[in-house]
């Protein structure tokens, strides 16, 4: 994922990006979400054939979760602000659409943080994404009591990436980060 034309710099930038959180699910960093696709650092003596940033410039390549995700503009601003703070004045944020983002790119740490926050983390991809109406519901585990005795309230939740469930055991409603 990371183009290592300067390992130390890239590692440092990566660490700073880990402090940029998703404004809509603030418990997740953009690294946990898996939307950072590449970190490119401009080299004075670059001889690479692929287009690289100018010397002193840093390019962060991100991909949106959903096409209409309103958090993307905010995330772009936060990336620039975070790197400016660490002395990088020339920061370029590029958005790519392909390959399309999937919840498979979410880190295990991210999934654990989600659960602790009260949002059920996404199931592995193969379970879902069926086109048929009234398909068999996914087995989603309640993030509060751990029960699988849960049911779907609505396929669309408070943000594009979540669905609304309720738990039949602890009786609490909860968000499920949809497998995508």
């Amino acid at each position, binding site marked *: 994922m990371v183009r290592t034309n300067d390992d130390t710099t890239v590692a440092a930038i990566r660490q700073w990006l880990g402090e940029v959180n998703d404004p809509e699910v603030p418990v997740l960093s953009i690294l946990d979400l898996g939307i950072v696709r590449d970190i490119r650092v401009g080299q004075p003596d670059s001889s690479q054939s692929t287009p690289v940033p100018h010397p002193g410039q840093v390019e962060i390549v991100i991909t*949106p979760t*959903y*096409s*209409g*995700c*309103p958090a993307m503009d905010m995330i772009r601003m936060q990336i620039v602000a975070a790197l400016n703070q660490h002395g990088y004045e020339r920061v370029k944020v590029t958005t*790519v*659409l*392909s*390959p*399309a*983002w999937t919840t498979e790119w979410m880190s295990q740490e991210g999934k654990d943080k989600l659960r602790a926050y009260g949002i059920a983390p996404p199931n592995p991809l193969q379970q879902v*994404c*069926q*086109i*048929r*109406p*009234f*398909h068999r519901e996914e087995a989603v585990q309640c993030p509060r009591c751990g029960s699988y005795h849960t049911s779907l*309230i*609505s*396929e*669309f*939740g*408070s943000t*594009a990436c979540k669905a*609304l469930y309720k738990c039949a055991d602890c009786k609490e409603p909860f968000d499920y980060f949809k497998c*995508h």
Partner: protein
Amino acid sequence: MTHSTALIQYTLHLADDSLILGHRNSEWTGHGPILEQDIALSNIALDLIGQARNFYQYAAELINAGRQPAPRNIPGPAVNPSPVTEDQLAYLRDGWDFKNCLLVEQTNGDWAKTILRQFFFSAYQTTLYERLTQGRDKTLAAIAAKSHKEGIYHLRWSSEWVIRLGDGTEESHTRMNNALDELWKFTGELHTATPYEVETATAGIGPGLSQLRPQWEEKVKEVFDEAGLSYPPAIWMQTGGKEGRHTEQLGYILAEMQFLQRAYPGCEW
């Protein structure tokens, strides 16, 4: 028509379909029958408008890169040093420049009509995007791949509602049939190719629309069967929207959607 002109028109057509349906759906925000479905339709609107933005950005890029004539009303790169933007394409074109199909501009009516409109469109859009993903234009293929995943949700959600209403109470069944009467005549246009669609299909960018038709019919029949609705017989179909000949409904949308940018050009908030 040169190749890039057709590609620009095709990209604008894809953008306009998503923007206009997204705008229509957004009219329900705050008015949905129950909170969960209000949120569902608003989320679908958000997906569609996000897809439209991706297509408009690409159309603007093509116009700027090829020094193509900008659509009417927009100072193009030939006379204006500043490049055409996605916002100009959405907010400054007039009705006859919009290339959305007639189906998506139809009024919301009741919940049944909104649902059926979404179902007809999603059944079309998912098959289209599936094929567009394999097309020769890399940017359109990437947007389509991303949007297809979202379209699956829209199709499943609207299918379930068509079944729920069609197979529900006497009143919901009647309303579904009324919606069908109003909307069926606009479905033929989905698979009637315009010259720019023929040209992009020939170039291997988009699919031949007639090839998508059987899949669409199969999906509609399958859902109608479960919903207890009869698949309508062949009738005269209205067309023209994709070439800028619209029903009166589009004008009302544009009047509301474009007012601010026309009255206060370049306004930001």
